[in-house]
């Protein structure tokens, strides 16, 4: 496929590094902030950035991201505004970007239209937590044509048989959900996580990245021993909340993210 995401993983492989992938909710606290945050994330160690499209019914999200989505929607944020935001980011950055969204907004926009617009704005990947690959056949086809990665999920409850199908359908990378649960920073990650990730890695040469619950640099280091990348979302949004409306928010978040990502730099 060879879009920015693929190229990034190829580069990481050469440099023997793991990917650090932060997630932020678009429009929280504002679209301007989102633009600045993406650039700050890049400057502080992000290899790929996930931008979340807020949804009225985020059933895979815990209270932190639920709240960020709700606040963003309260301001009247629209899909088109988010696409414009990505376009603006692209003027100064080449960082790989994946959009994370629930399925209904994509369905309503029109799958083909959505993929085309995403490509035009410089999006490299699409992550849809409530769309299993077997329901995504037309979407995967359009995405492949437009060279947009379709990243599917593995979870601790996924059977081996199903794992094979999901691994085959995913492009860009595979999102391994660390826990049976919703998003939200946790203190500890489950015991069996690393062995499960190893099983997934044994099935494929595609990059496997772990997310959900990751909140400390220790988590990041531990996961990086087995996985190809680490995804952090709620912990970053929690950090944002501490200084949400202050002038320094973006800088503070940048510094926090650096403490997480620097664990991956040494190899």
């Amino acid at each position, binding site marked *: 496929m060879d879009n920015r995401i693929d190229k990034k993983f190829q580069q990481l492989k050469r440099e023997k590094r793991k990917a650090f992938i932060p997630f932020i909710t678009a429009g929280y606290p504002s679209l301007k902030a989102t633009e600045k945050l993406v650039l700050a994330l890049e400057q502080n160690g992000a290899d790929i950035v996930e931008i979340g499209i807020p949804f009225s019914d985020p*059933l895979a999200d815990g*209270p932190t991201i639920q709240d960020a989505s709700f606040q963003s929607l309260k301001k009247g944020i629209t899909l088109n505004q988010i696409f414009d935001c990505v376009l603006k980011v692209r003027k100064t950055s080449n960082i790989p970007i994946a959009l994370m969204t629930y399925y209904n907004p*994509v*369905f309503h926009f029109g799958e083909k239209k959505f993929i085309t617009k995403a490509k035009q704005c410089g999006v490299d990947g699409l992550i849809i937590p*409530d769309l299993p690959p077997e329901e995504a056949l037309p979407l995967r086809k359009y995405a492949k044509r437009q060279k947009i990665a379709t990243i599917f999920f593995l979870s601790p*409850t*996924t059977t081996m048989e199903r794992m094979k199908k999901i691994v085959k359908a995913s492009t860009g990378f595979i999102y391994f959900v660390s826990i*049976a649960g919703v998003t939200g920073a946790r203190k500890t990650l489950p015991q069996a996580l690393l062995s499960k990730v190893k099983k997934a890695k044994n099935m494929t040469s595609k990059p496997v990245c772990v997310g959900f619950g990751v909140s400390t640099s220790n988590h990041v280091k531990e996961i990086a021993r087995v996985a190809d990348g680490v995804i952090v979302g709620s912990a970053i949004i929690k950090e944002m909340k501490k200084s949400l409306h202050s002038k320094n928010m973006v800088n503070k978040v940048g510094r926090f993210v650096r403490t997480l990502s620097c664990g991956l730099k040494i190899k």
Partner: protein
Amino acid sequence: MPETLMAMLAELEKVFAAAMKDKKFKEEFNFYLKEYASRPTNLYYAGRLSGYLKTLRVYLKREDLLHTGAHKINNTLGQILVAKRMGKKRIIAETGAGQHGVATATAAALFGLKCDIYMGEEDIRRQALNVYRMKLMGSSVIPVKTGSKTLKDAMNEAIRDWVTNVADTFYIIGSVAGPHPYPLMVREFQAVIGREARRQFLKKENKLPDYLVACVGGGSNAMGLFHAFFNDKNVKMIGVEAAGKGLYSGKHSAPLAIGETGVLHGSKSSLLQTKDGQIRIAHSVAAGLDYPGVGPEHAYYKKIGRAQYESVTDAIAIGGLKLLSRTEGIIPALETAHAIGYLEKLAKKVKKKSSVILCLSGRGDKDMNEIKEFI
């Protein structure tokens, strides 16, 4: 649906299919429907109501006479038997008006399972009586404070709980919505309504009814009534949604009337949504009709023209509630009152005297506090 639930849904589909073929399962289900819930329910000819309407001969299918006062128990008894079959020790449910919550708490008490019920804060206020009933039967009622604090948010929270506790927890969904196999499973458990009604009507009138009328929120009582008559081409089906303060007021719950196709809670159906695909908040005086979506099978029936979908406002529904109370001495639930409210419109539309089976999905005791303001 999130990946974490896919294995469970696949297993549930298999277990349900096997249960439907298992004679013992069917016997056990029928036993509880009969001995515990009090089936069969009567099909009662409402003479005074029909006299008032003049052009309609109305038969009431008395689901309000079931234990717990609504049709919801048909489904919870069926699903709890499936949960038992899967060895699950804990039940969760979502509830709007509280009837499904009560029916779930009832089944959980009957089978000795732990039960947590998610209910929107706004609904807890509107249906306090039902909240007490659930707690008295040993279930916990967990208030949902996010979103619109009503049914769709309760369903979101229940799904989040399920994603987290999928190994030991069974989610009993209250209507013909949600991910497959739920719409199918709930319909199969509610289909007893239509099978009985069909048999009873044939016995009384020696022919089939002209119309079937039922209120539609998620659509379980309507699908329960309609399903058995699917192949009876001359039987017309009418589902009645809640038009709230009016279809163009922005405050209603009529996705089949003016919603668009979308995906919510794991199924593709008609939804109330914004032009960006965000889900709108539904409004109705009836808490049980407050769902911005509708069961996918109803969307299908509408698409193929098998059923027609109408809607009535809060005011007309309240009128329907008063009408049935005064002509027949039966106080219907606010949800059911929507179907009754529609009868006056239907009576004016029909070209000749027609027979109707109306699904009296529930009794109105739970609504007395809400109705006080309108009497």
